[in-house]
């Protein structure tokens, strides 16, 4: 049976005296893709940050374990090699070439101040090819469109080559064909034994995951397989029955209820 990649016990978080997460317990299995969905303000991004140990300006309570070890006890660089993070709206207009941006993902692997090794170059090339960003490797980020930029940033996260990858709204600015490409990328990561957790607003894409974590008002409303009827019911429930989950050509899709 699958072992647990990330587990959380009684996670509470408050930002500026406003409680956002209310005592969350969860176990995310290894080698699976879990999508996190829910209405705006449900605490999805905050949960993801809390699980990654990246909530700096909030008061967080509870325990998180990454691959069986308490997160707080793992040295920062080692954690960075175990868990890759891709945030929302990374990088404002920047002058660095895409290649150098992707190379930043290798920082946890490189000795301090050492130039990139052959393995680093190979990892960056593989990542940029995976997201089809290799062709503009020497173009600065400021000259790329929103979707192209997003693919460079995804390559940056892939270049870390961590067993666990967290992504917060990775599909922002991606057009439908590249959303499909992203789906294939995640599938191949999971097929290779990786664990992926992604916060998504695109419910139909989120339904292609293995498991779904549905959040509402800082609590977990439901956590179960995406193929499960109970998950679909919970999904319709949490979005106030304004969407409906239907099967089309063997795929589960979320459609507006008109």
């Amino acid at each position, binding site marked *: 049976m699958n072992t647990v990649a990330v587990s959380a016990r009684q996670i509470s978080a408050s930002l500026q005296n406003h409680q956002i997460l209310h005592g969350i317990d969860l176990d995310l299995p290894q080698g699976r893709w879990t999508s996190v969905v829910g209405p705006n303000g449900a605490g999805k991004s905050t949960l993801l940050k809390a699980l990654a140990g990246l909530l700096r300006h909030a008061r967080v309570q509870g325990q998180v374990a990454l691959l069986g070890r308490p997160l707080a006890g793992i040295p920062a660089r080692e954690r960075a090699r175990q868990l890759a993070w891709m945030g929302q709206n990374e990088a404002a207009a920047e002058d660095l070439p895409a290649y150098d941006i992707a190379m930043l993902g290798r920082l946890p692997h490189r000795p301090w101040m050492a*130039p990139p090794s052959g393995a680093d170059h190979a990892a960056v090339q593989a990542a940029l090819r995976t997201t089809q960003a290799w062709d503009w490797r020497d173009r600065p980020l400021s000259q790329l469109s929103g979707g192209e930029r997003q693919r460079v940033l995804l390559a940056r996260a892939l270049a870390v080559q961590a067993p666990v990858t967290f992504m917060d709204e990775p599909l922002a600015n991606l057009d439908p064909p590249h959303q499909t490409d992203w789906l294939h990328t995640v599938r191949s990561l999971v097929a290779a034994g990786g664990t992926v957790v992604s916060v998504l607003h695109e419910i139909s894409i989120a339904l292609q995951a293995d498991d779904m974590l549905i959040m509402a008002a800082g609590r977990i409303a439901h956590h179960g397989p995406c193929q499960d009827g109970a998950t679909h019911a919970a999904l319709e429930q949490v979005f106030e029955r304004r969407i409906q989950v239907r099967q089309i050509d063997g795929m589960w899709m979320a459609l507006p209820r008109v």
Partner: protein
Amino acid sequence: MSAVMPPAALDAAPAAGQRRALWLALWLLLASCALLVLGASVGSTGFDSVLHAGRDPLARQIVWDIRLPRTLGAWLAGALLGLAGAVAQGLFRNPLADPYLLGSASGAALGGAVAMAMLGVSPTTASWLAGLGVTSAAFIGAAGAVLLTLVLARGVQHTLRLLLAGVIVGVVLSAARDLIQVAKPQILESMQVFTMGSSAFVGWQACALMAGSWALCAAAAWALSHLLDGLMLGEATAASLGLPLAPMRAGLVLAMALATGTAVAHTGLIAFVGLAAPHLVRSIARVTHQWHVWLSSLMGAVLLLAADILARWLIAPQELPVGVLTAALGGSYLLWLMHRRTLAVSL
């Protein structure tokens, strides 16, 4: 380079960027050498002093004790300001951050004024110890001003609030400096040199202090440059890459304050060099901060030395305070930058 060289096609992109950076560094070093020679030959007695330096003890004194240290001093002050600007822009993720707009230059000037009033020294007669005292006071002033700006702006996220807080801190600290001048009129003359910015009183001691400080700050900025790279992707992502944000940030703020404080303590308030140098470097070579901090420092040095020579030569045998010249030139550059940015946004 690394022992394991990747195939040529694999690293075509970074190699091109680094080659450009290397060329830029080479050009800047060549320009520095040429300007150092030029700086030694520009002055009220002209090039003659250089020719006669071998025989004439007065000419030798002019070249060796006046022109050379102030030329080298202008280079070093520019290097410190360019470095401070590059660190500030990376650290605050703000292309407009510089020691001036963050109020740290005003803080350094206030610290310098306090030290001068208390020690009763002027830059002209400064001894080793007094020079060190003024430098330390300027450093404390610069660091305090940056922290004050950060507190007022409640962090670095909001560009407008950060710049506004910096301007407010700058104005308030300048007012405090004026008060000290009123209370201690005997420092008025030296303070005037200080507020307008000039390399005229830089001696060998000041050069040694600035060189030491530059080596320290540049080494710190270079060693912590990965944080500046990581911060380009935002705070959360930088933290996710295993970079210890808080200590690295503190180190960079201290390096920036030391660079600003040392430059201001010896050459006074010289605006816009710290802002313009990193921008110019970025428009020529787009490289990671490991290179960028060095290049910006060299660029600042070349800019300030060129401006200093210009200020000495324009209305010779009189001379302009170099701070006035950089403010005029740098201000125009900033206006042009703003104009170009609005164009880019509206297109």
